[in-house]
């Protein structure tokens, strides 16, 4: 199995940001993204998803290190001050490098 090294960025944040994040990541060069509805808790308390304002999403982006770095930078600067945001990055390998 021959794979090509990419980065996987996972962002867990408020559902209200979904539209904004998708627009941003497209603009910053990501080729795609995947969103999933989640609930959870962190610094900013429990987000039990039992009310519209309490819903959270988990956004996953596979991309080149540069794209992921730009995205991370942008999210830190734009959203982290005022929104519940968690982010982490892992290494990953893909089969068709042009896709990501």
């Amino acid at each position, binding site marked *: 199995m021959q794979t090509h090294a990419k980065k996987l960025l996972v962002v867990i944040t*408020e559902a*209200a940001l979904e539209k*904004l994040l998708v627009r941003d990541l497209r603009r910053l060069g990501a080729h795609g993204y995947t969103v999933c509805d989640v609930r959870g808790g962190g610094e900013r*308390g429990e987000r*039990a*998803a*039992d*009310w*519209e*304002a309490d*819903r959270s999403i988990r956004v996953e982006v596979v991309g080149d290190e540069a794209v992921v770095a730009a995205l991370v930078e942008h999210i830190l600067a734009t959203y982290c001050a*005022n*929104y519940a945001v968690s982010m982490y990055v892992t290494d990953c390998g893909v089969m068709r490098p042009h896709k990501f």
Partner: protein
Amino acid sequence: MDVVVLFFLLGVAARLAGSDLRLPEALYEALSIYLLLAIGIKGGVELAGQPLATVGPQALAVVALGVLLPLVAFPVLRTVGRFNRYDAGALAAHYGSVSVVTFAVAVTFLAGRDLEYEPYFPVFVVLMEAPAIVVGIVLARAGEPGRRVAWGALAHEVLLGKSIVLLLGGLAIGWIAGPTGIVPVKALFSDLFKGVLAIFLLEMGLVAGGRAAEIRRYGAFLVAFGVAMPVVAAAIGIAFAAVMDLSAGGTLLLATLAASASYIAAPAALRIALPEANPGLSIAASLGVTFPFNITVGIPLYHRMAAWAGVPGGG
């Protein structure tokens, strides 16, 4: 007490007792879509044959009321409540805007007492959604000339949000279909209305009950504001109603709209347009304090207040 309010109390009690009961998110969504459409349709059907000459000036008054209320609330929140400008602006926006479900409970209250009201009231609900949100944001941003508000995005969020689209859409459908055209869908949108409202209130009770810890954390001022503001707003609403020459039922409805605080349209809009504000604060106040107050104590109280103010046929 109206039976629908009992469902709310059941929700609060279950949550306070520690039950994990929850309605599925999709059910909550479905019920809120239903309620907005049904309220709109009902108003639209009766709109046919209304003299627009009367409605026009009243509509302007209603918008003015929506602008006035946050202007009343903001200074109190800043000085007495010592909130920062963002939280004060956000709270003012929530309290100037309206709660459709509180409105529905007031309509049920009137129906139980056979009191008439201007049938085009759902139009006023639509008109009162947005103005206070704009005013609240302007108040919060006033001291920051550098920051520009993304008014376009805000307009999109509010005017094309669930509440306004479905209320307006329902109004249009009811108006076009008219009393006979609407008959095929009446069994769903009319006969079941109160039952659906009851289940929605159960869910609201569960959510409101879940805010208890948060309310305790935010302290006494928030609770006091959450009770006093609606009473003051209702009084202002009754004064407007007198000027607008509304019926006894219409007076109660306008008082209720003034007293009610938004927890759907305003939170969504402000999270985008005023992210510095703490969303937990506004929701705790509007959903955890004011909503329960209004549907249990407030509505009957405003009915009395209208009578004291000399509205004929009032409580």
